[in-house]
């Protein structure tokens, strides 16, 4: 049951984007719409889960000296599989994510978890860690993209259907690159503020 801790770790306490500050390239680049965030998140969850599982299964057989190339081969294979499957069954999402699907290979969340967690822990724990981190990454992407899409286009769309719209003149800046950096910066500040407060209270409770 302790593996549930690994699962929730990735979602909040160790959130890959806001706490570990990993995988920022895709988080900044594809967070322009909710659809993109979900597509990217799903692909990342799949790759993270599978890479963690395989790395953990073969962790005792992998020679230390060549562990990184082996991890990269495993990750790259799963990314290619994910991209082929997306191309075959979800072509619209694949098209809108474009170059960022193959770039999942260099998403440091994935190599980071393989190296820091899966290569030292049991398969079950690694699966939970992969799922938690993947969902944490997806939620972070969703949060950023909801803010950017809403303020940048004045409406929220979910796979073609408008779920929320306003008549306020949209601030185009949010949908463009500077908006990504601004939103990311503000959210990072918010999260570290929350963490700081939490740390202070837990420290004093213990005393």
């Amino acid at each position: 049951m302790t593996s549930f801790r690994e699962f929730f770790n990735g979602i909040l306490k160790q959130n890959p984007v806001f706490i570990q500050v990993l995988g920022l390239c895709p988080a900044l680049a594809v967070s322009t719409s909710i659809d993109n965030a979900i597509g990217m998140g799903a692909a990342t969850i799949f790759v993270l889960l599978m890479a963690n599982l395989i790395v953990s299964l073969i962790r005792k057989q992998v020679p230390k000296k060549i562990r990184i190339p082996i991890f990269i081969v495993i990750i790259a294979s799963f990314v290619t599989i994910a991209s082929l499957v997306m191309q075959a069954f979800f072509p619209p999402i694949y098209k809108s994510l474009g170059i960022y699907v193959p770039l999942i290979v260099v998403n440091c969340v994935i190599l980071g978890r393989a190296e820091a967690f899966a290569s030292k822990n049991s398969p079950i724990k690694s699966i939970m860690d992969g799922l938690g981190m993947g969902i944490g990454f997806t939620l972070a992407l969703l949060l950023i993209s909801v803010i950017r899409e809403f303020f940048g286009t004045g409406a929220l769309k979910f796979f073609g259907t408008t779920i929320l719209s306003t008549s306020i003149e949209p601030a185009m800046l949010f949908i463009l690159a500077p908006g990504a950096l601004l939103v990311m910066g503000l959210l990072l500040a918010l999260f570290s503020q929350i963490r700081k407060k939490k740390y202070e209270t837990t420290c004093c409770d213990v005393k």
Partner: protein
Amino acid sequence: MKETIQLGITLMIVTLIAGAALALTNQFTYEHIINNQKSAIEKSLSVVITADYFEESDNYFKAYDKDNNFVGMVYMIEAQGYSSIIKALVGISDNKITGVDIVEQLETPGLGANIVESEFKDQFIGKTADQVLLKKDGGEIDGVTGATISSIAITDAIKKVIEQDAITEASPMSKPEETNQTGIIIEDNITEEVNITE
């Protein structure tokens, strides 16, 4: 030395397994991917022109109705947009546009990407070469708000293709010549068949 070889062999085994897994996935998805591409183009073709079948060439399609009458041309155009190359199909019949469909684009979501909306695309229907210009340049097309570059890119490309089409259609010989050509091809087939039976 021995260790190096051992590490090399280990890595080779890993890549071999990975390669086999990828080959398997490719086998499984290949047909779907090809079908998707085909059906996407077919769908776009039916949007831009009403026809029963198409004769495909390099970057255009000739459209025919069910009685083999030539109804129009569908051109595949490409234009450099703001952040991507925009690919679109343009249907032209009698020097007028019958429809435009954006096949591929990676413009900014919420701005340039709005060129795929029918609000923008459907403006082109029924327009002649002179009318295909943004309103600010004296034409009849409303650009997408906040996406001047994407709008100009696609409008210019459509203008170019309809002007080109007008040149080939305008020369009096070209159109009948085309129908003659197909006629000749059919005759050729027949003579060949006759030869075989002989």
